[in-house]
């Protein structure tokens, strides 16, 4: 598995090629990219800054990938999460899961993504016309994570 927290952008084609490693057992590649929107909770967002907990962030994401491998029949997974200052249209996060079949790859990809949104130690500060504000946790995200009964 690969987990990276970085300020640099990423390219999904290159990441998929690296994760597949020419493994001819891979039949399914599910992926997800999260992108900065220009609006959140009704306010125009000019830019946002993402903070994380170095060490714990990587460790906790590795833990969730291990959980995903225990639940579904998948081969490998990659998470790249950006931190620092990002603007609308910028890519924030990439999750790729490879597997033999699509059902397990989709489920594991969504599971990891739900974890990233709800449990992984990232904090988002948005700059709007009204100034900068820390984003509050969403209840809907907690419900998404509850579906999986994620531990921790």
């Amino acid at each position, binding site marked *: 598995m690969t987990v990276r927290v970085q300020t640099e952008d990423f390219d999904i084609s290159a990441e998929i090629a690296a994760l597949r490693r020419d493994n001819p057992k891979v039949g399914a590649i599910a992926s997800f990219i999260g992108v900065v929107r220009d609006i959140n909770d009704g306010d125009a967002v000019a830019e946002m800054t993402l903070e994380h907990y170095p060490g714990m962030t990587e460790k906790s994401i590795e833990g969730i990938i291990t959980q995903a491998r225990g639940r579904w029949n998948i081969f490998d997974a990659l998470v790249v999460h950006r931190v620092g200052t990002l603007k609308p249209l910028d890519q924030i*996060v990439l999750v790729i899961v490879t597997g033999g079949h699509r059902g397990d790859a989709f489920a594991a990809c969504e599971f990891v*993504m739900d974890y990233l949104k709800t449990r992984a130690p990232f*904090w*988002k500060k948005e700059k709007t016309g009204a100034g900068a504000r820390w984003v*509050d946790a969403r209840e809907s995200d907690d419900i998404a994570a509850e579906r999986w009964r994620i531990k921790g």
Partner: protein
Amino acid sequence: MITVLYFARLREALGTGSEQIALPPAVRDLEGLRAFLIARGEAWAEALGPGRPVRVAVNQDMAADDTPIVEGDEVAFFPPVTGG
């Protein structure tokens, strides 16, 4: 000594992201450490007091009030996460 970390809104409210603290003899668990920090003054009580939306990790695992705190631990206080 223990290492105490603060993230995001808490880091800003407390004016620090990281500090080394000589573990007070009375502090045996997370609840005790939190009480010790709250006793520092109003900003601390405001940020870490009962009912505030604060999560805590001890040695990078999510922790509860009764999680023991021992010499050398890394304790992190932060708001509910809002990632991705």
